[in-house]
């Protein structure tokens, strides 16, 4: 089996698709470079990311399946689920060959992709809701996240529309990159973050006095708005799974 290894970017993945159509190997698996489970019999090849090739594949897909198809492929890709590249490849082949619609759920690849797309969408919405900005001493509204899937690229439009008049930066700690809005455009950036940036005792190094006060006010508000006689923790945890509590300043132990 042929194996293409790529740099884990979306453009890299699309470049692999391009090469696949050029070289037409019989069977192919596409894996990110950091993936090293190669078997002895496989021939592996490092595919170089080529924006032009990526563009052509992207356009072709759009022509064939419409923007619904490309959106779904992009979102499923962002899940980073192991093996998702091969499912997408298998779908893409059928899409180009027989025009298989991304809504034909009788197809097992389509069904799988649609499930993943739903999960990614849900995670994106959670981040829209659970991001908590803190104003730094430089006047930037700063938040860190560590989502299950790589959804940050999907959050950009929402935050840009909403926070048009403030500088903000959302940083994905897991994937070590962030998106930064400088009052004009949103850009992807990589930073050397201090390891104690989220440490409560060090907060006054990075954040304004006012910031810490507003956090406390919010925490207070959250406690005051609760109705003890209606308490229902099961339902609570269903809405805010525990793994998200770390983002929420109102859920920090005071």
């Amino acid at each position, binding site marked *: 089996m042929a194996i293409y290894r790529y740099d884990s970017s979306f453009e890299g993945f699309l470049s692999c698709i391009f090469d696949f159509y050029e070289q037409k190997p019989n069977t192919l698996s596409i894996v990110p470079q950091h993936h090293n489970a190669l078997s002895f019999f496989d021939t592996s090849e490092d595919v170089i990311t080529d924006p032009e090739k990526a563009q052509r594949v992207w356009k072709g897909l759009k022509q064939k399946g419409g923007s619904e198809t490309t959106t779904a492929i992009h979102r499923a890709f962002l899940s980073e689920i192991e093996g998702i590249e091969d499912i997408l490849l298998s779908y893409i082949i059928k899409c180009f060959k027989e025009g298989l619609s991304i809504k034909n759920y009788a197809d097992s690849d389509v069904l799988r992709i649609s499930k993943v797309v739903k999960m990614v969408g849900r995670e994106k919405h959670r981040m829209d809701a659970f991001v908590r*900005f803190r104003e730094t001493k430089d006047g930037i509204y700063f938040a860190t996240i560590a989502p299950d899937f790589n959804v940050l690229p999907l959050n950009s439009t929402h935050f840009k529309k909403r926070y048009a008049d403030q500088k903000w930066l959302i940083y994905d700690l897991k994937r070590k990159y962030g998106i930064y809005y400088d009052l004009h455009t949103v850009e992807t950036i990589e930073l050397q973050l201090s390891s104690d940036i989220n440490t409560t005792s060090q907060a006054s190094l990075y954040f304004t006095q006012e910031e810490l006060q507003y956090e406390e006010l*919010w925490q*207070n508000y959250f406690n*005051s*708005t609760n109705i003890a006689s209606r308490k229902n923790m*099961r*339902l*609570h945890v269903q*809405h*805010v799974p525990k793994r998200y509590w770390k983002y929420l300043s109102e859920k920090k132990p005071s």
Partner: protein
Amino acid sequence: MNFDRIKEKLNILADAAKYDVSCSSSGSKRANKNKGLGDSSGMGICHSYTEDGRCVSLLKILLTNHCIFDCAYCVTRKSNDIKRAAFKVQEVVDLTINFYRRNYIEGLFLSSGIFKNADYTMERLIAVAKKLREEENFNGYIHLKSIPGASDELMREAGLYADRLSVNIEIPSASGLKLLAPDKNREDFLKPMRKVKNEIIQYKSEKKIIKSTPIYAPAGQSTQMIIGATGETDAQIMYTSAYFYKEFQMKRVYYSGYIPISYDKRLPSIGTEVPMLRENRLYQADWLLRFYGFDVRELLTKEHPNLDADVDPKLGWALRNLDKFPVNINTADRNTLARIPGVGMRSVHKIIHARRYRNLNWEHLKNIGIAMNRAKYFITCDSKDFETKDRTPGQLKSMIMQESASKFRKAYSSQLNLFDSNALPTL
């Protein structure tokens, strides 16, 4: 900012505001303009959830809990011995903006005790909203309380800044109101509602002709009733609701199980359980009115003045109307499908779509996601072995309940999902 003072006020005035269950931030079409702050054109987001499972989407506070009235069911009532506080207009503006900038909230829900008189209070609420819109260029969501008795001019102005306006009628019947809030009268509640309704109608018709007509309360009006404080039947409550939906084109009526806060003899005593199951049934009935094409007279009558506690209102209706069943899934029209127990509106869409290609059988229906444990007694489809035995309503009920005994608990504790306006429950 005088931090300690603000903190104290916030504690008092958030605590007093929490009995208002509405927290919706959807339905507005206010987009970000001139690169200002905020946008409420989306779906409305729950930024957090309280431990009782309610969505936290808005900063919900009173401007003040000083009040000249003495409504027995209200913590803010004049005779209650509690700490009082009042925000300054600027303080509410600052809190809202700063919470919003940090992505804590979708906007502000501002209510108030009545100080001096209705107009004086309403003016202060409007001042907050106006400042947010005009000085801060804030496009987040604003929900203002309409103060009972406020003048038409003020209600007109309020709608120019607010996305939603609401007056809580709280007590479903006029006699209950007389008992618990003797110095209030029903007309005072209705007056601002009527004004807002008329303004909305006018806005909609003018907007068609003149594009630049200033936007007026785009998310409409809502109201709330307290359940179980006075002796109203479910019928009285739901007929009142139906009236408000029809007469005032309410977007939502909320039902809030009474939380005992007083030793007043006229009210359930402290420690009485909050009637959450009843509240849940009322929301289900409300859903049937708004989305399933039911008329309130089908659900509740003189002979049948209360919803069943043990089965949902749609199943209750079906059991009283067995002559209308079984329904053939493959031929019935949309309204008829919507009346089958266990079939939600989403399933109705799916059935109608899927049966264009083939006749549906049990297997298809299961995949579509309908609740077979209830539905199977009420339908026929493209399978031969369906329930043909004639059973009495009582027999059917106990069979269904036995089968769903474990699920019942689950349905009950997820009742609060109903506050999430996106969640269409399966009835």
